């Protein structure tokens, strides 16, 4: 078996049959990172010592029979998750030397299941971006074409998996930061329902939107990871106090009778015609597999971008106020007084995009403007949520494109903020409503991957994963890999 494109479930079989040890598997991926990551810059920190120590423990667990599906599986984690003793930067200069003093609940659960941490992946600074070009640690290249972006903000997690430098990776999605890079890198990317996975220890961008999720090769692997990542956490008051279903159990159900909604608002001006054709062909394939396709309406989708670019900056301006150069993080040289310390530490520590969003958010929350911006954006957020509630009375899953185009050239949109923000035009509505959504590969356009977005009702991840898994039984787009990393 080629280890480079193997899934979690395939590698689990190899590990429990002793065809390979966790140590051998871990060394394989560490060697690949050492050999190939200089081409794509997908890792900020590689943790070989920790990985090999974890592999040793995994081999002991495998030998004793006390293993899980994740025992010995090498993963890469977005550098937004705190891990005790490991540098955690959020892609920012302000945290460039921050060694986290505790481990996030999500990663703790994956560690406890016996998985291996290969390292921390590159990302847009504080998850603000759609191309992974705002990282203090440099841009990430797309393994399918290293002159193109991998998408963002979880660009490093997506690129590292597309380049077969790990078996799966974690990410976070605030407005599309898992789904859009999954689409651009030809991967399965899952953003669960808001609150399904604990946010504790995940560096905050916009707290009412941030949600952890995964990049995997298949929907089956996404289901496996979610079973371990999901669950209530006393430390996160927004984590849902509900039991975690066995997501893998529902995968094999056929699509007959599943109702799929198509929204014309997702196929308007700005969508690349080849992307549109591939997405529509993917939807026709779902129809041939027995799903019932019907038109639905999400009339307030057109306001999602404007609502998001008020709410997310507003929350970020509050969340990022904690970076003051006093308790942790970057501190400017020779501050003359306390105000100088705050202002220069923050101005020198944050990048351009982050500072802009803090200012926009500060404006939206300021006296005299609050009602016109923040309150109005929240009212629209309710209308968008109501749209989804109505739609899910008619259908089980909503489908459409994940992104308006394929991966674009590095630097092409860095001076055009609106064009960059439009990258998330199809993903933001699900984030505002808090419903689960995923992206799966649906074809190649001029050699670059295209993603099909699936949006589900609250807590209906199992339905999404079932549709995605069934689609992947009939198609092989998810098995395509970039030539230079096979």
């Amino acid at each position, binding site marked *: 078996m080629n280890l480079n494109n193997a899934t979690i479930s395939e590698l689990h079989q190899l590990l429990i049959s002793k065809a390979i040890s966790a140590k051998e598997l871990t060394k394989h991926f560490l060697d690949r990172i050492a050999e190939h990551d200089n081409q794509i810059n997908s890792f900020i920190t590689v943790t070989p010592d920790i990985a090999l120590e974890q592999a040793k423990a995994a081999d002991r667990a495998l030998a004793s029979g006390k293993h899980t599906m994740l025992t010995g599986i090498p993963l890469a984690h977005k550098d937004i998750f705190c891990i005790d003793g490991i540098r955690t930067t959020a892609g920012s200069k302000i945290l460039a030397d921050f*060694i986290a003093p505790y481990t996030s609940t999500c990663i703790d659960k994956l560690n406890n299941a016996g998985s291996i941490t290969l390292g921390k992946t590159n990302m847009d600074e504080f998850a603000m971006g759609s191309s992974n070009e705002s990282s203090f640690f440099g841009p990430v290249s797309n393994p399918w074409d290293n002159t193109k972006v991998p998408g963002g903000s979880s660009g490093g997690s997506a690129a590292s998996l597309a380049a077969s430098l790990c078996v799966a990776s974690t990410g976070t999605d605030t407005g599309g930061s898992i789904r859009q890079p999954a689409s651009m890198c030809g991967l399965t990317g899952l953003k669960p329902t808001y609150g399904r996975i604990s946010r504790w220890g995940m560096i905050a961008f916009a707290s009412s939107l941030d949600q952890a999720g995964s990049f995997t090769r298949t929907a089956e692997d996404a289901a496996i990871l979610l079973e371990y990542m999901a669950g209530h956490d*006393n430390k996160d008051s927004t984590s849902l106090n509900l039991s975690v279903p066995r997501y893998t159990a529902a995968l094999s159900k056929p699509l007959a009778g599943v109702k799929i909604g198509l929204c014309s608002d997702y196929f308007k001006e700005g969508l690349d015609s080849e992307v549109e054709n591939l997405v529509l062909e993917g939807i026709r394939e779902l129809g041939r597999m027995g799903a019932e396709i019907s038109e639905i309406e999400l009339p307030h989708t057109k306001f999602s971008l404007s609502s998001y670019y008020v709410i997310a900056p507003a929350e970020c301006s509050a969340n990022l106020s904690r970076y003051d150069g*006093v308790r942790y993080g970057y501190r400017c040289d020779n501050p003359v007084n306390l105000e100088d310390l705050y202002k220069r530490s923050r101005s020198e520590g944050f990048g351009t995009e982050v500072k802009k969003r803090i*200012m926009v958010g500060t404006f939206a929350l300021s006296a005299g403007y609050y009602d016109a911006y923040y309150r109005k*954006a929240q*009212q629209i957020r309710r209308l968008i949520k109501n749209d989804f509630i109505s739609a899910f009375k008619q259908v089980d899953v909503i489908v459409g494109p994940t992104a308006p185009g394929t991966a674009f050239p590095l630097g092409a949109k860095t001076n055009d*903020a609106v064009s960059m923000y439009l990258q998330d035009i199809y993903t933001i509505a699900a984030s*505002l409503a808090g419903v689960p959504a995923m992206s799966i590969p649906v074809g190649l356009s001029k050699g670059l991957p295209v993603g099909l977005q699936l949006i589900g009702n609250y807590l209906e991840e199992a339905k999404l994963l079932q549709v995605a898994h069934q689609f992947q039984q009939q198609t092989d787009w998810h098995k395509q890999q970039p030539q230079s990393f096979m």
Partner: protein
Amino acid sequence: MISNEELDLLGDLAQLSLDPDSRESTLAAINEVLELVATLNAAECENVKPLAHPLETEQMLRPDAVSETNQRDKFSQVAPLFEEGLYLVPKVIE
């Protein structure tokens, strides 16, 4: 659209200093976003209750009991300047 004076106020509120060389581009960039979000005004929202949070669930309460150990020493190790149990900042009171 915000003016130069409002930009100064935002800088103060957000504790960010404005580099004179990039001041113009910062102002233009913020106004570009505000222009984008101005489409909010076209939405009919009368009598719509604002949605602050997607879940709208009750805030979870915990028993009023100590659940964490004091890790002051560990947390102070990541501070830029820490001495004798104190986080050091420039003199506040002359």
